[in-house]
C-alpha cells in the first residue's frame, strides 16, 4: 500500500520587494522559501494513515523543483515520510500547475500509489489546479478541500467530508484510487523531531528529470504564461482621522482639491 504526496516549495514575499528586470515576477532575493502550508496537512494525513495501519503503508513524497526544493523535501522526510522523489530540469523554470500535473501523472504510473494526497492549493499562487489536473490526466476520482477523511488502506472506497460555501459540509464516498486535495485544519501537523531531521538526511531521494519520465519538450510547455506582474496603482482612499472638526476640515480640503479650487 502506497500513498503519494506531492508537495511544493512556495515563495513568500517580504513586505518590501522589487520586481525582476523582465517584469514577470518578483526578484528572487525578496522571497522566503518554505514548504507550502497546505502540504503540512496532506503529509500529516498520509502519516496518520501509515501509523494507524502499521508498516504496510509507504508514504512517498514528490516535489518538482531545483536544488533549493530539497529543503522542503527533507522537511517532509523528517516528519516520517519514507522516501522522496525530486524532479527537475531547467526547462521547468516556468512550469505551471498543468505541467506539474503531467509530471506527477508520470510519477503515478511509475510508483503505482493507492492514493494521492495534494494540498488544497499553494499559498503563493493559489491556483488549486494541480490536484484537479492530475486526477483529470489519470482519469481518477478527485475531491477538493477535504476536511475529514475515513480511509482504510486497501479499501475500495473512502468516506470524506468537504467544506462548501455558506458553512455547508458535504459527506461523500469516493472510489479508490483517488486524488484528494487536503484542506487546512483536517489534522494537527507534527513538528519534525531533531532525530527525524538527522534521519531524513539519510533517506532515499530519487532525482529524476522529465526525460527519465518519458516527457519531451512539448509536454513541458506551460498552458499559461505570466505576461506581466506589477503592483497596481494605489486608489484614492484615505483614512480621515481626528476630531469631528478636523475630519470636516479634511473633507473640505479634499473636495476643494477634487474641484480644483
Amino acid at each position: 500500500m502506497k500513498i503519494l504526496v506531492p508537495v511544493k516549495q512556495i515563495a513568500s514575499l517580504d513586505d518590501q520587494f522589487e520586481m525582476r528586470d523582465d517584469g514577470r515576477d518578483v526578484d528572487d532575493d525578496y522571497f522566503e522559501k518554505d514548504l507550502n502550508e497546505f502540504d503540512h496537512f496532506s503529509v500529516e494525513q498520509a502519516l496518520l494513515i501509515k501509523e494507524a495501519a502499521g508498516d504496510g503503508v509507504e508514504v512517498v513524497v514528490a516535489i518538482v523543483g531545483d536544488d533549493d526544493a530539497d529543503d522542503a523535501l527533507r522537511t517532509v522526510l523528517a516528519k516520517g515520510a519514507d522516501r522522496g522523489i525530486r524532479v527537475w530540469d531547467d526547462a521547468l523554470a516556468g512550469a505551471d500547475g498543468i505541467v506539474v500535473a503531467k509530471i506527477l501523472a508520470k510519477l503515478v504510473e511509475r510508483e503505482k500509489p493507492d492514493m494521492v494526497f495534494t494540498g488544497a492549493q499553494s499559498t503563493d499562487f493559489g491556483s488549486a489546479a494541480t490536484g484537479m489536473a492530475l486526477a483529470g490526466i489519470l482519469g481518477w476520482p478527485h475531491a477538493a478541500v477535504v476536511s475529514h477523511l475515513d480511509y482504510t488502506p486497501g479499501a475500495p472506497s473512502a468516506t470524506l467530508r468537504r467544506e462548501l460555501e455558506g458553512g455547508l459540509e458535504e459527506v461523500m464516498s469516493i472510489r479508490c484510487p483517488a486524488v484528494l486535495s487536503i484542506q487546512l485544519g483536517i489534522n494537527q501537523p507534527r513538528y519534525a523531531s531533531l532525530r527525524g531531521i538527522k534521519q531524513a538526511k539519510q533517506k532515499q531521494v530519487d532525482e529524476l528529470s522529465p526525460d527519465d519520465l518519458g516527457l519531451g519538450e512539448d509536454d513541458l510547455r506551460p498552458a499559461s504564461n505570466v505576461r506581466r506582474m506589477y503592483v497596481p496603482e494605489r486608489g484614492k482612499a484615505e483614512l480621515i482621522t481626528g476630531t469631528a472638526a478636523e475630519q470636516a476640515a479634511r473633507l473640505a480640503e479634499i473636495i476643494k482639491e477634487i474641484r480644483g479650487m
Partner: protein
Amino acid sequence: MMAAATDIRGAGGQDALVARVVAGGDLYAALGLYAGAGPGARAALEPVIFASPRQKLITAAAAFAPASLLDRLAADAGEALALRLAKNPATPTSALRRLLGRCGDARMARCLAAHDHADAAILDELASHPAVEVRRAVAGNPAAPAGVIGRLAADDDGLIRRAAAAAPEADAGTLARLWQTGDDGVRAEIAAHPNCPADLLAAALRSTDARLRRRLASNPSLGAAELEQLLADPDDGVRAAAVRNPTVSDAGIDTGREPSARIRRLIARRHQLGADVIARLAADPDPWVRRWIARHPDLPAGLLARLAQDDDPGIRRSVARNPASPPDLLVRLAQDTAPWVQAGVALREDAPPEAVGALLSSRDRDVLGALGRNPATPATTLKAIAASGDADVRRSIAFNRAAPQAAVLLLAADPYPLNRAMIVGHPLLDDGALADLLDDPDPQVRFAAARRLGRRAASFPPRNSDGKPGDDE
C-alpha cells in the same frame, strides 16, 4: 559536535567557535556571534552575513542584528535595504543619519521621523519636510526637542498640533500658545501634560467638558486639592483617571461612597490601602473587585480564608497567588475542584510539600505547566513534564532554574522549535548540547545558541600553564 563544544573553553575557544560558524556558513549563527566578537572575529563573520543580497535584506530588517552591523549596511544601502533599516528599531542613530542623506520618498522619511533612535538633529531636519505624515511622525516622536515642538505647534495640521501638545518636551510657552489656538482635543492633551501652566490647569479644572477633566485627572503635576476635587467629580471617567493618577494619596479615596464598580476595581489594585478599605472591598458585590483585593499582600488571614471559599474560581486563584496566604490555606486550595486554582498553588515556590504533593498526579495542562516552572517540584516530576505530550507543558521546564539536566536536555531535543529556543538560555544546558543547537533547523535557535556559546567562550579565562581548562560560567 562534542569536540567543538570543548574547544570553546580556553584561550582559543572563541576562535574555534568562529571558525566553526564560518565553515558552516549560517547567517543566523554568525549574527548570534557577531555582537560579542572582537574585530578579527567580526571580519571573519561579515562575509558569511553579507554572502548574498537576500542575507543583507534579512539582516537589515532583523531587530536582533547588532547595531554596528546595521551601521555598516547603511553605508551603501540601496532603496529596499535603506527602507528596511529605517524600519528596524535596532538601527542606531549613526545609521539613521546616513539614511537621512538619501531619503528619497516620504515613506522613508516617515520611518526615520518615527524612529526611537532619531536624534534632535534628524528630527529638526524632518520637521520641515513637505509631507504632512512626516511632520506628524516628528511631532509624535517623544525625542523631539522643545524647539522642534515649538515650530510644529504652529503647523496647519490639527493632528500635528495635538501631537505637539502631548510631546514630552513641549514647554509651558508652547502649551500656552496651543491652548489659545487649539480645539478640545489639543486642550485635553495640554491638561494632561506635566508642563501645563498652573492657570491652564485651573481652567481645565473648571471646564464643563468631562473629556478635558478626564485628561486633567491623569496629570502627575496636579496638587492634592485638585486631585481631591477630581476624585469627587460626578463623571465616572474623571474619578477613574484620578484613582489611576500615581500621585493620588489613598487618604483621598473614599470607597464607601464610590458607586462605580469599575472604579472600585481600580482602587482594589492599589497597594497602599487601609485595613477598613481592604475589608470593605473584600465584601464587594462585584467579583472583579474581590478578585483584585484577594491578591492584596495586606489582606489579613481571616479575609483570605473567607475569599478562599468564594464561588468564583478566579477569586480563589487570586488567594492562591497571594504571597500572604498561609501554608494551610495553600494545602486546602491545592485540593480545589478547579484546576485553575490548583495551578495557582502549583506556581508557588513557597508552597508546602504537602500542597505540591497533592498536585503531582494532576493531568491538567495548567497545573502541569505551573509545576514545571516551580523549582520546588520534585526532579522526577520535572523529568516527566519534560516528556509530556503537550508542547506547552514541556516548555515550562525552560523557566525552571532547578530543572534537572536530564529534563533540560530533553527540551533541547524537543520537536517544537519554540521549546528549543527557550531552553537555550537555561544555565544547565551544557556546551555539547548548545553546540548541537548550532545545527538546529530553526534560525532563532541557531542564533540564540551561537550568542550563548560566544558569551561563554568570552567568559572563560585563558588556560593555565598545565593546560587545564578554566572554570565554567
